[in-house]
């Protein structure tokens, strides 16, 4: 899918309003007070999505990717 029609990226109507906040206090655990912004910024997103699913449906998915099939299976398992 090497084109924008099939590899769909978010457009202006897809994203919510974003507010940026600068967090300035020093990280006591980081080297010289530094905070990572690569992996530490990336990791919480899937966890937040998994928590949102748990909040909405009461089911815990603990492996990525979270697919419709996994959710339907978990819902069926809970009913059965």
């Amino acid at each position, binding site marked *: 899918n090497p*084109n*924008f*029609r099939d590899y769909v990226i978010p*457009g*202006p109507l897809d*994203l919510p309003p*974003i507010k940026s906040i600068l967090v300035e206090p020093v990280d006591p655990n980081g080297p010289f007070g530094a905070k990572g912004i690569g992996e530490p910024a990336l990791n919480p997103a899937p966890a937040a999505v998994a928590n949102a699913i748990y909040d909405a449906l009461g089911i815990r998915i603990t492996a990525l990717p979270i697919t419709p099939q996994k959710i339907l299976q978990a819902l069926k398992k809970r009913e059965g």
Partner: protein
Amino acid sequence: MKVKVHLRVNGSAYEVEIEPRRTLLELIRDDLELNGTKEGCGLGECGTCTVLLDGRPIKSCITLAVQADGREVTTIEGIEGDDGTLHPIQQAFIDHGAIQCGFCTPGMVLSAKGLLDENPRPTELEVREAIAGNLCRCTGYQKIVEAILSASSK
């Protein structure tokens, strides 16, 4: 077999002789050497090729050059003042941090100009709809929307 096309670009008249299949983007970038307009996808999906045709935003990569015959094209190079002062929309993009890599910016600015020339006080939703055909990978659109809204109140 070539055809003659007469068009105005950024206020200047041009007469060119081109193959009928030539796109307006090819004419702008290759024949007129106005490189502010970009080719991001060539398929009309990304909007980096956006120019104004008789004041309305269009995607030049999927527009034939012959469609501009007798009409007025405005590219990003054409919106600054005669003394080189930036257009208020361009200045707003700078002031609001709406530019990162800058590749989407010419298209964004022209889509915004197309909107504001027609609707001087748009809502945020109207702004987002006006730039819906312009993709940006860098900014998440927030500051672009803020810049356009800020330019609209001037």
